[in-house]
């Protein structure tokens, strides 16, 4: 599974960084850096982060076009 964050929408509430720190991390006070490929074993944490994001900025899904590679 992969994630992408709409960083226009993100306002740095950092809920994702608390809930899934292996995937999301604040960089400076307000910027978010993340791993687009969710590592094995962290799916449930990321699901919680997707739900918890106050501005609903995180999209999770199967990697697009994975079958086309």
């Amino acid at each position, binding site marked *: *599974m*992969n*994630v*992408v964050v*709409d*960083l*226009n929408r*993100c*306002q*740095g509430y950092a809920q994702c960084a608390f809930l899934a720190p292996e995937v999301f991390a604040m*960089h*400076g*006070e*307000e*910027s978010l*850096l*993340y*791993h*687009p*490929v969710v590592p094995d074993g962290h799916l449930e944490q990321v699901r919680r982060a997707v739900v918890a994001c106050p501005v609903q900025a995180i*999209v*999770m*899904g*199967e*990697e*697009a*076009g*994975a*079958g*086309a*590679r």
Partner: protein
Amino acid sequence: MRGEPRDGRIVIVGASLTGLRAAERLRAEGFTGSLTLVGEEPQPPYDRPPLSKQVLLGKVPAGHTGLPQRRELDARWKLGVRATGLDPVEKRVLLADGAEVPFDRLLIATGTRARPWPHPAEAALDGVFTLRTSDDARRLAERLDAGPRRVLVIGAGFTGSEIASACRERGLAVTVAERGPAPLVGALGGTLGALAAKLQRAHGVDLRCGVTVTALEGSGRLTGAQFSDGTRIDADIAVVALGAVRNTEWLAESGLAAGPRGVTCDAGCRAFDMYGIVTDDIFAAGDVARFPHPLFEYQLLSLEHWGNAVAQAEVAAHNMVSPGPRRLPHLTVPAFWSSQFGLNIKSVGVPTFSDQVVIAQGSLKDARLVAVYGYRGRVTAAVSVNQARSLEYYQRLIETAAPFPPAPGAADQIESPDPVPSDVPDPKLLSHGPTVALTGHLPDRRLTVVQPAR
């Protein structure tokens, strides 16, 4: 439009963010026909903003920025093959491998590519890079891992500044060369440009403004660079960040209104032909599109922004499967973000569409602020620095054409209540191309300049 809007053959040329989001939306709107995505790069759609941030910092491998899909697409992917032509009469896309892909409706989403260094022999030196694709990022990150003695970044727009920031964060020596008076000045004007210059220097960047790189030196391998002021440096890496070139050459014979400024389309993403007649089966979206925006006096805008790619893809896809009266206009307020030198910079509106700017909240001294831009007495843009949560308020002011300068709010700490000139330079004075190109006419200035594609 032939046949039923929800049936038939749709081809999307360009398999990046715009193409993907359009494909998803087409299926979400009930399109049941055949869907083909053509992409020049061999990789499935991936996200580009992380390339100059996570990837260059070495936190995420370049091949690991694939985009998630929000639904099953049931699409045919033709990746690693470039579109070379469009036959609008027979309604076929021609591909570099000789194949032809017939369509009933077409979406042009071919985006942009990095503007190359103008001197081909120098561009071919080992150590000279551009940064646009995942492969570019992988090669550059590998070379940064190897610990170069000095990195030269040519062009201090957003991409160049983010590259410089990542290099400094890795502890690498960095020189930034910008022909304009300051970093980011082309996008944000003089006030925030001066702040960006101060921050780059405070982070140890050897920032050189008002100069151009006159030569990249080396035989086989880059060894240094010469500047227009007569100085030179040793450098083993140069990153050329001169902006982007729109991928429209493949449309040269198509009869569409396509050129260096993009593919001109209407507010509903329908492409114009070269006579200014709107087509009904060819659409454009994303970085390659050039469209009229009512908030900016219907000037044609070209936006190289993630958010525009998503929003315009959705509108284009909706309109591709909807009859005339149900079509939607693309009215999204332009917005982008950048993360550099510890700061989160976010923008709404079009800061270059301005004559004045005022720091409405916070202060330059603390590098935490909201700058609000106005043009002829109305609010046209706002930029936050480490104060993103305030931006939504100003977006409302832009959408409602509120008077400029904005009235002070209760919580505002005004640095100076007096607006100052926004000092947006003529783009031809900059090293890099604009990421927001206003391609219409303002009576008091030129806002864009077309450079021939190389």
